[in-house]
Structure formats: structure tokens, C-alpha cells
């Protein structure tokens, strides 16, 4: 005897419809559950690891680039390299990303023998990063390029406070960096402050 009638007795249309609905929504229920328990925690973990791993960088050399008269006083212009290092990180699918750096704020003062030699203040709304709309062969070099990224920040000071005859002048640089780091799902404001020995190098003749 065929087993069709007995199978049909149990697998009636309402049962089939329920089975079809379960079959239909099953994978999506899985995706939402995995998103809550795996995707989002994984993204968060990788974001926070990236926030902790990123480092600031302030050059130990300040370049004196120009001296000019401003209102009867001699104003010196310096360039200082400041940046953020190790921005590259792997996202939740293992794809390389560059950590977004926004609202980058740098302030510094250079002091020698109790006198302020130079002052710096710079705001950068966003560090460059790949858009994610590039083909891989363009994207991948950009990730490496922006992994460590530094700006040349202009600083000003009274030129009479330094010995312009000397090629180098040691100073103490007190600096502070404030920036918003943005990962895939999270952001964090990080602040770095330091006081470091730095030297002014006269590069006007170079």
C-alpha cells in the first residue's frame, strides 16, 4: 500500500504552511540571533582593541622655517610633525580598515629657560582614509599609506627668544592631543599629553 495517504494525513496543508513559514524565517532568525550574539560583540571588541592600540606621535624635532617682521616684532614660524600611528585594524570579517580620526586637536608650547619659545594650536576635522568605494588595488595601498599619518603643524613664537645663530636649540615641548576615534560601531575620545625634550632645528638655509 502506498504511504502517501498516511503521510498526507499528518502533513496536512496547515502543517505544511507552518513548516514552510518555519523554513522561511529560520535562516533570518539565525542571522538576527548571530548578529546580537556574535557580529555586534565582535565588532565592539575589535573597535575597542583598535582604540587602545592606536598611538600618538610628536616629532622630537621642530623645524624653524621662517622669521618675519610682524608689527615691529620678529615672529618665527616652525613646523612640527604630529600624527596618529597604527590606525589599521581588522574588522569583524577580517577585512583591513583604517580607524577614523575626527576632531583632532593639538596644542603645544615649547619652553626654554622658563620662557615660552613657541606655541602651537591646530584643529583637523578629519584624517584622510580610504572611502571603501575603491577597487582593492587602490584601496589596499591607501590602507598602508594612512596607517601612520602625520600632519605638519605650524607653530609660532617670538624669534628674539631663540638664538638664531645656533643650528639647534633644545627645548621642552609640553603638548596635548585630543581626538575622536571612530570604529565600525563605536567611537571614543582619546587624549594624550606629554612633556618631551625637543630640539629646534633651523632649516631656513636648507
Amino acid at each position, binding site marked *: 500500500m502506498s504511504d*502517501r495517504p498516511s503521510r*498526507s494525513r499528518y502533513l496536512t*496543508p496547515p502543517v*505544511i504552511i507552518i513548516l*514552510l513559514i518555519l*523554513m*522561511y524565517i*529560520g*535562516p*533570518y532568525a*539565525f*542571522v*538576527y540571533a*548571530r*548578529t546580537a550574539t556574535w*557580529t*555586534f560583540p565582535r*565588532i565592539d571588541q575589535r573597535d575597542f582593541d583598535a582604540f587602545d592600540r592606536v598611538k600618538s606621535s610628536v616629532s622630537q624635532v621642530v623645524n624653524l622655517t621662517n622669521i618675519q617682521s610682524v608689527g615691529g616684532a620678529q615672529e618665527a614660524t616652525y613646523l612640527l610633525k604630529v600624527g596618529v600611528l597604527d590606525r589599521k585594524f581588522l574588522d*569583524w*570579517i577580517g*577585512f583591513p580598515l583604517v580607524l*577614523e580620526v*575626527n576632531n583632532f586637536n593639538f596644542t603645544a608650547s615649547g619652553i626654554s629657560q622658563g620662557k615660552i619659545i613657541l606655541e602651537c594650536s591646530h584643529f583637523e576635522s578629519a584624517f584622510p582614509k580610504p572611502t*571603501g*568605494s*575603491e*577597487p*582593492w588595488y587602490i*584601496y*589596499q595601498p591607501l590602507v598602508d599609506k594612512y596607517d601612520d599619518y602625520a600632519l605638519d603643524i605650524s607653530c609660532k613664537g617670538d624669534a628674539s627668544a631663540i638664538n638664531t645663530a645656533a643650528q639647534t636649540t633644545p627645548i621642552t615641548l609640553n603638548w596635548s592631543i585630543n581626538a*575622536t576615534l*571612530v570604529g*565600525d*560601531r*563605536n*567611537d571614543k575620545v582619546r587624549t594624550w599629553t606629554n612633556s618631551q625634550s625637543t630640539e629646534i632645528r633651523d632649516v631656513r638655509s636648507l
Partner: protein
Amino acid sequence: MTDYVSEKGRGGLWRILSDKDGGGWLGYRGLFAIIYFTPQIALFAYWITYRAVTLSAALFYLTLIPFIIALSLTALLPGKSGITPKTLAIITIMAIIPYSLYDWARVPMNLIFGIPFWDHWFDWGNSILGTTGTGATPTGTIFTYEQLTAGLISHIMRGWGLAVGYYILVRKVTLVSAFAFGWAMTIFYWIVFPVWVLTDALPPWIWFFTAWESHMVFAAGLWVAPKIFNYYRRAY
């Protein structure tokens, strides 16, 4: 009405392409198959322009407008073409099975190998909604349930639309044609994603395997769905 199991294919290649009843690939079959492929065509436009064409725009111009036209065309379908409003209704229900099986086939690949097969759903959702999420930052995040849901719906439209397109194209569902369609989808997937989709630029072997096995399960679903349908149509 076309019987998707018992009707014998006949008439050779020319009959497939064209028949006087309007049922060939150059007639209503081809036209309606293309219309049901439009969700995939919209995604293709999104990918090959490196996301310059947003998925919302692509779905509007390449999917919504053709579907509105198709709605009117349905009323004009010649009964002898084999594609009628009733066949379309049956096909759209049958098409749920293959793409559901396709997604089921990817579930173990996530659990065993960690393949995050829904990663693009966030991108698609973001491109459809045009939002930048609800995060605290000015740029926001694409990783929200809203964007996942929008991306999921577009994914469903594509899988379902491709299955509907297959049933419209074939006069008789066979294992060979179902797997030929599955292989065509696999090859399309293997080419498009590594070439145009940034995050899939250099996929590992398991990515290729997952794409293949899930499309083979899709093909099996294409083949089995009409059998299930006919079994219950006879039983009740």
C-alpha cells in the same frame, strides 16, 4: 497551464526562444523572467559602479518601475503562452523553497567556518535607507538592525526573483536545467564579488566553496519545489 513536472519539452531551441503563443524567451517568458531578475540587476548596477549608484536608486529605476509595468502587462498575457496570472502566483509560492534552502545551506558555514554571509546586508541596507545609523558620532554606523533588515529584504527579493525567473524560463523543471541555473549563479557570484566587491577582493577557498554549495542547494530546491507542490495538489 504549464505543468512544471509532467509537461514534456518539445520543439527544440527555436521553440524555446520563440513560439506563436508568445511563450518563448523572446516573448513573454523572457520579458517576465527579466522583470523578476531586476532585483539582481539593480544590485549589479550598485556593485559595478563601486556603489556610486545607490541601491535605493537602482531598486527604484531598475526594479520598482519594471514591476509596475509588469503589473499592467500581466493583464495582457495570452493564455496559450503558458505564463498566466495563475502560473505566476504558483511560481511565486514555489520560489520560496529554493532561496530558503539557499540561506539554510549557509548557516552551517557560519557555525563551522565563521563565514559571515550576512555582512553585505548591512551595506545594502545602508545604501537603501541612506541613513548613517543612530550612533553618537557624526558619521554613524551601518551596523544597526534597521540596516540589516533593509539589506535582508533586498536579499530576499533577489533570491526569490531569481527562482521565479527560472520557473518562468523553463517549460519543464529538470534536474539538469536546475543545476545549470545553479552553476550559472555560482559563476556569476564567483566573478562579480571578487572583482567589484571590495571586501570580497581576495576571498579564501572556503568562500568559493560556500558560494558553490549554497547555489547547488538552491538548484536542488528549484527541482524539488514543483514536486512538493504537485504532490499536495494531487493529494488535496
